[in-house]
């Protein structure tokens, strides 16, 4: 079970602050276990930098089990790196070879300005959610959970859409910086359920309007978002969003 450890060269984007000019720095890293995660490799780099008296690389991360959506990073030209359906924290070093040079960049999109190094500001997603990503119910006074049966296929499809973790890989990957996959996931989830259907039209209009206002680009159906989505959210959700939105607009 002996596994060979990796020696790597890292090309990492460093940027002091939002308004500062960024640049790449190159670091070399020895003896990384292929069983460590990409972020654990970054931890080793930071430990090394701190010991050299330098500033560690700032990057977003939290749960480290692929669900909080906090970790980002564009690794070797792909959001969340070269493995399918994973977040960066679930990407393991066994996907790389000894001697590799790894390029690490922040998400780049007008909607996600860089805060520092690899950390970007994704608060635009919260603003879109605040515009309409909810069912308007207050706490209390709701019917029994089983009052309205929901066909299993609909519940399952809603769940698939709802698995979006809001990481922003879709925007980061899209050549248009479009947030349609993110928006469509929420619109789809709620439009598929009777509880959310009631205000589906209002929701679709409000969320799309907010998305446009925040400067995200237009979807041109390249499907790159779906390919890089760590949760495999399908672009058929975008078709549903289009449908919901257009129907809503035509009855206005």
């Amino acid at each position: 079970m002996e596994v060979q450890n990796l020696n790597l060269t890292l090309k990492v984007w460093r940027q002091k602050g939002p308004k500062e000019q960024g640049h790449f720095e190159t670091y070399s890293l020895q003896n990384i276990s292929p069983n460590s995660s990409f972020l654990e490799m970054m931890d080793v780099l930071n430990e090394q930098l701190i010991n050299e008296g330098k500033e560690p690389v700032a990057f977003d991360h939290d749960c480290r089990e692929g669900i909080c959506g906090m970790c980002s990073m564009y690794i070797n030209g792909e959001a969340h790196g070269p493995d399918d359906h994973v977040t960066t924290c679930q990407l393991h070093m066994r996907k790389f070879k000894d001697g590799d040079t790894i390029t690490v960049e922040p998400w780049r999109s007008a909607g996600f300005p860089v805060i520092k190094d690899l950390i970007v500001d994704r608060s635009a997603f919260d603003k879109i959610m605040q515009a309409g990503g909810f069912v308007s119910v207050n706490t209390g006074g709701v019917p029994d959970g089983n009052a309205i049966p929901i066909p299993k296929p609909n519940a399952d499809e809603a769940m698939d859409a709802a698995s979006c973790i809001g990481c922003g890989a879709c925007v980061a990957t899209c050549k248009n910086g479009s947030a349609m996959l993110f928006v469509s996931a929420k619109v789809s989830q709620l439009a598929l359920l009777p509880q959310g259907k009631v205000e589906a039209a209002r929701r679709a209009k409000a969320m799309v309007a907010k998305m446009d206002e925040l400067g995200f680009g237009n979807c041109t159906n390249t499907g790159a978002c779906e390919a890089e989505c760590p949760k495999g959210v399908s672009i058929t959700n975008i078709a549903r969003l289009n449908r919901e939105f257009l129907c809503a607009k035509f009855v206005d």
Partner: protein
Amino acid sequence: MATFDSKIPEGHLFEKWSNYKAHQKLVNPANKRKLDVIVVGSGLAGASAAASLGELGFNVKCFCYQDSPRRAHSIAAQGGINAAKNYQNDGDSVYRLFYDTIKGGDYRAREANVYRLAEVSNNIIDQCVAQGVPFARDYGGLLANRSFGGAQVSRTFYAKGQTGQQLLLGAYSALSRQIGKGTVKMYTRTEMMDIVVVDGKCRGIVTRNLITGEIDAHFGHAVILATGGYGNVFFLSTNAMGSNGSAAWKAYKKGAYFANPCYVQIHPTCIPVHGEFQSKLTLMSESLRNDGRIWAPKKAEDAQAIREGKKKASDIPEEDRDFYLERRYPAFGNLVPRDVASRAAKERCDHGFGVENGGAVFLDFKYAIERLGKDVVEARYGNLFQMYEKITNDNPYETPMKIYPAIHYTMGGIWVDYELQTTIPGLFAAGEANFSDHGANRLGASALMQGLADGYFVIPYTVQNYLADELHTPRMDTNSGEFAKVKADVKAHIDELMNIKGTESVDSIHKRLGHIMWEHVGMGRTKEGLQEGIKQIQELRAEFWKNVRIPGSANELNVELEKANRVADFLELGELIARDALHREESCGGHFREEYQTEEGEALRQDDKFAYVGAWEYKGKDVEPELHKEELKFEFVELKQRNYK
């Protein structure tokens, strides 16, 4: 100043909560917007509390250290949420959920709180369904349930293996709606640094903006801490990297009692440690124990051969596999509560039957696949299997998973009364941050239930009862008086950290703390070990304050400073955990003292001496804290030695 009265309402257990609500004080709608409420944390408890209070019309400010409230670690809960709906007609009831929770908690929780929790559990499911949480459903379109450890009924609602995520996103959507409406103001990437107490009442908090480093003060007529647990004191845990105990610790140092810190839950099914650079442990949902069978090799030589890579799990014949949980606990088998399952795994590994680096046992799905077919297993656990394979490179459909216990949840926390109010008036604690409902051990799928119960259905009532008397308290100037003083203290604390300028990274000290904790204050505790642990923690703390290195400055985004601030608190909190464990000379739930066990190696409680909540009061730096005891009265259940045989 501090009031130490659990304030349990009068009446029969079944009526206490109704009685409370019927007689509590309310605030009229026009006055609500004059009252400010601060909610720290945006997980299940925080988001649901902030949203519900916002809906009522209070002026709410909500804080989280992450970049969005949706990232709170509640999101990582996989398995499910309990409720006493009895949709399965298998004999469930509010009382049974209450009873299971009390028993699962090894009779160290407050009856009234737990009953209320069981009572509102059903409302939670209804609320979440109404929000559009896509719970799993059967073909008839009705809600599906699964069974979970520690219960004989099937009462767990779930959304694939992402129940926590879906519930949190439900609460987040409710919170987002209120933010959009302007009733809640959200502060992201903002960490609470301290609370502000004015004339004996909590009146606000001081925060640090994690992007700019700015120190601000915020006024609130009431402050709710929903800041989660302190499991990261062990460094390696299933908690998020940022999860910390600092908010609770700051409250403790300002006079809030800290209850039962030694009750730490170790989750039996986590992916084993792979190496020294490991940063966290990943939990595999407990629901896996429904269909997976746990075993270790019967022969030590087989275990050794597997460790050395000479044999594989599949090479071990059926008769040489020791299904030790089924052997020891025939009635519950693989579904015994978490503490029992964890200790049993440790017992096997300590005796040399562990695999991997000696720190793992098998969780095998071969039998489930034979019984149910691969399709059914995939439908139930597909995403968990995929996750396991991504991490370990092993395919669980073909080779058994390797699992080992890891720190997961902390039952202990800030002491609160029935109203979830701490010993500082105006300061409340909800969710994992408080100590209230799980006793010495939490059952699976109960954390989500408690977080949401506190946030949606308890806090909005009890906080209002407090606020009704605060109508005439004017909003305070946060630039003078006590607010200015606390701000100055916080700045001084940060300066002190920045000025150490030592040579050791924060993480390396944190890792060493974790080793001490796991070694001496972990799954099996002894008097000598705990004393040694306390000594080592004290030494490490001194070293931290002499030798930690924090690069950069305090006036910018500085991750190392954030971590240092949290680890400084962990270095104190760790000692309190050890002290509490040392004083509690019994074994119960997540606290196992090796001196107190039955002949079969089960936890042995000392009900005559320790049937109380141990609440610690801070007495000053380097002064021993004072222990207060809240006697637990069991009027409605009979204290029994837990028996899962």
